[in-house]
Each structure stands twice: as C-alpha cells, then as structure tokens.
C-alpha cells in the first residue's frame, strides 16, 4: 500500500476475521513506519472495533486506507456493519457502559488510543466507526 488513497477491505464475519484484521493492520502499520507503541495502539483499537463489528453488528467489514494530509501520512480504518445500530451514541461512548456485561471500555478506550475517532450509527441502520492514526515526524 505505497500511495495515499490506496485501500483494501477485510471482511469481518467471524472471530477468525478479527485475528486476520489485526494481522493485516499490523503489517501495514509496520510498512508505514509506525513505532512499536503506535503499532500496538492501532492493532489494539482494531481488535476492539473488529470484535464490536462481528459481535454487535452481526458482521461487516474493515476498510483500511492510507491517508495523507499535506506531508503527513496516516492509517485510516473504517469499520462498518448493517446491524441493529446503537440507540444512544453518547451512552455508548461513556466509560464503564457496556451492552453485554463487559468492562465497557471498548469504544471510549479505543477513542483514547487513536488520533481521530468518528462514530455514526442509527437504530436499524448499522454502525460506522472511522479511526485514524497519523505518523509522527521524527
């Protein structure tokens, strides 16, 4: 994925796909030159969001895009599904809230790991989460 705008899609239908998504995102993060901590943040965010897409969204897809903003390069990850959607976005982004008895840190925690985070969802119309991490110039 050498040039900005290049993108690829990973299906997220089962738990194996969550592992596959983590592998692919890690490989691209390494290729782009993210350091180890940034790689770990990006792959962890991928794990959280891919699991949500698989479990809550009933499956969906991850689109990975190399993005540019002037000289800056970054990795953009878009997780989308056609599932039931999230009724209360503010609540879903609150620390400690969980729809399934988990720790409730998936979405709010993921937001802290990434430079950019956008969540769009409506009941019955699926969910789209877009995150981006920018490569820091050294």
């Amino acid at each position, binding site marked *: 994925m050498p040039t900005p705008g290049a993108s690829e899609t990973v299906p997220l239908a089962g738990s*194996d796909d969550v592992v596959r998504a983590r592998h692919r995102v890690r490989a691209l993060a390494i290729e782009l030159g993210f350091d180890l901590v940034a790689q770990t943040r990006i792959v962890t965010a991928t794990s959280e969001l891919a699991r949500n897409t698989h479990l809550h969204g009933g499956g969906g897809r991850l689109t990975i895009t190399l993005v540019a903003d002037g000289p800056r390069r970054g990795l953009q990850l878009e997780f989308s599904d056609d599932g039931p959607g999230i009724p209360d976005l503010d609540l879903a982004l609150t620390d400690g809230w969980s729809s399934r008895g988990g720790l409730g840190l998936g979405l709010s925690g993921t937001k*802290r790991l990434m430079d950019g985070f956008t969540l769009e969802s409506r009941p019955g119309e699926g969910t789209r989460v877009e995150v981006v991490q920018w490569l820091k110039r050294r």
Partner: protein
Amino acid sequence: MTTVPVVRIRNALVAAMQEDIEDRSALELADRLANEVAANGASMVLLDVSAAQVVDSFISRVIVDIARVCRLLGAQVTVVGMRPAVAITLVELGLTLDGVRTALTIDDAMTALEDGAGADAWRV
C-alpha cells in the same frame, strides 16, 4: 482454534499466551486452568504474556477472571513479562488488571511467591 500451552513447574502452572490470542482460546484457557488447579492443586499460576502483542479489553477481562477464579481455588495468579507497549496501551484503554499480581520474569514471580514476599499487599 489454537490452544495455549500449559506446563507444570513444581507447584506452578505456567501458561504461555501466544502473540495473537483468539477470544475463544483465552476462554478455553481460563476453564482449563481452573480445572487443572482444582484437580492437581497448583499453588501458583503464571500467565506468561511476553509474546502477546495485543491485550485488549476482552483478554484483559479474561485475565482478571482467571485470577479471581484461581484465587478461590487456592492458587495465586501472576501475569508475567508484559511488553512495555502493551502496558502503555492497556493504561490508555483504562485497563490496569487491578488486583492481579505482575512480575517481569517467571523467575521473579516464582521467587516472590515462594518467599511469600508482600503477600498482604498482593492479595487479589
């Protein structure tokens, strides 16, 4: 599904988590460790996460659950060898494995547990 290998060293069970663990492998490990502790009476369980490249909220919850269950069965759980990048990411996620003992190496963990050092401070 890949299975997490568990080996017994004296009275300890050592489980070495892979670099990329699947959710169901972690859940299977939790059940297996509980059964093994109950059946063969290990007094310590060491979860070696030195190979793990990702510990997310799910795996973190499974680790905390393993520690709680094993404690009820009479074994102390220590998480060993976490990578710095994983620790940094966990803290940013808001997850700190509260109540779970940690050590840098298996040797450190076994020495500390055998000495009973800081047993009160370490209570889960």
